[in-house]
């Protein structure tokens, strides 16, 4: 009961069974999660339209196109429209990110989400559980080691996409950093690859959300998760 922001647990005796409600996702997490999901979808789709104007990371002459992005995945209609979307929602993405990280540190929530050296030992059992159907290790915290690992990586990806994006936006103003990252063409490639990283995360993330069912999905909207699993009733009540 020490922290008002999250981690609260409530047990309710409902006729026969005991139900445990856990307040897992504080309001700021739920708010930034969905703002972020929206802006990221727009940034990816408009980014793919921008990419389609010159789908290569090499010379203009001779131009070797890498892939043809299907138009359903693109947003903006043409290069100019896509850039308008991209440069509008980059602000939403950046401000949401700063707000989230600030509150993470301010409230101590970072301890819930960041993958720390102490989590390393929990990683292998989780991987065995998910990919080789081994028994599920007992869940003590909101997120298991694998979740923390994925979420921490995706936060770092977010920071990297903003840095490479700003470098592509102002390659002359920041020419030294562009030089350090291997020049303009490579920075374009890094920016593109961070998007690929996001796509990889989102695919796995959504599969997991589907596997974990309605109650878990509801928790990122309303904050509370219904938990009949009694493995963690013993701890701090």
């Amino acid at each position, binding site marked *: 009961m020490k922290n008002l922001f999250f981690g609260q647990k*409530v047990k*309710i*005796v409902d006729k026969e069974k005991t139900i445990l409600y856990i307040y897992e996702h504080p309001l700021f997490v739920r708010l930034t999660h969905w703002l972020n999901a929206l802006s990221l979808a727009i940034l990816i789709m408009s980014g793919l339209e921008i990419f389609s104007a010159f789908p290569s990371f090499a010379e203009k002459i001779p131009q070797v196109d890498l892939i043809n992005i299907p138009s359903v995945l693109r947003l903006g209609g043409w290069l100019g*429209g896509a850039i308008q979307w991209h440069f*509008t929602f*980059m*602000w939403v993405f950046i401000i949401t990110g700063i707000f989230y990280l600030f509150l993470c540190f301010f409230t101590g929530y970072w301890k819930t989400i960041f993958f720390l050296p102490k989590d390393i030992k929990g990683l292998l059992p989780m991987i065995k559980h998910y990919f080789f159907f081994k028994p599920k290790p007992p869940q003590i915290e909101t997120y298991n080691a694998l979740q923390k690992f994925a979420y921490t990586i995706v936060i770092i990806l977010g920071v990297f996409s903003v840095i490479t994006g700003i470098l592509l936006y102002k390659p002359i*103003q920041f020419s030294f950093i562009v030089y350090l990252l291997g020049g303009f063409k490579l920075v374009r490639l890094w920016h593109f690859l961070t998007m690929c990283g996001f796509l990889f995360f989102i695919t796995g993330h959504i599969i997991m959300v589907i596997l974990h069912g309605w109650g878990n999905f509801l928790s990122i909207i309303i904050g509370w998760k219904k938990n009949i699993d009694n493995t963690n009733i013993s701890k701090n009540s």
Partner: protein
Amino acid sequence: MEKLQPQEHVKEIQKLAMSKIKRRELLKLLPIGAASISLPLFNESLIKQGLSFSDWVSETLYNPNQLAEVFTDSQVTEFKKFPYNTYDKDDPEVDLENWRLSVEGLVEKAGDYKLEQIQALPKYTQNVRHICIEGWDVIGNFAGAKLADFLKMIGADSKARFVEVICADYYYSSYDMASCLHPQTLLCYEMYGKPLDRGHGAPLRIHMPTKLGYKSCKYLISLRVSNILSKDKGFWEDQGYSWFAGI
């Protein structure tokens, strides 16, 4: 399973939890849902304002002393790999013999200028990166007079805010004064050591390494210094590209 009774102090939260968990509460999400559905309806003005806001931030944070990286001759892209990039035709058939640059607006010496008068100004040569909004880039060799020197020669009002140009192929654009005074902004009449060829904008073009390629207008015929931007800000700008376009 052992039955657990809620303690006094969690009763409040318990109520909260119960009420929150009701599906009816999901109705509260309706406004968010409605907002995201109506997004496409007002997106046109929203995203245009997003772009102008980005432009405003870019212009406010613009550092006039930041120089574009310069390259050695061996790093320059081969001449035949430097694209002719025009919106229409590569050669608007400028009459090079009788070509003049017409100068008007807030200047002391308005009138028609010959290429020789521009060539009489100190000549600068630079190997700089030319970046297209589409995403490709080339390193070119450009030579010409500084636009800042030319503006001084024509007695342009140094406090004027804008410079507008018109080209022989009906292309047009406009610039903030600070970018025109940048030391690497050239009135360029030579590329790769030779007079501009027709595809690259003969006889005179602008080259601004601090802006995207569509701001480096070719086949210049007219230049105007002003305090009020015309309704037509630029060929691409009027269709939705960034006006400032600083990189």
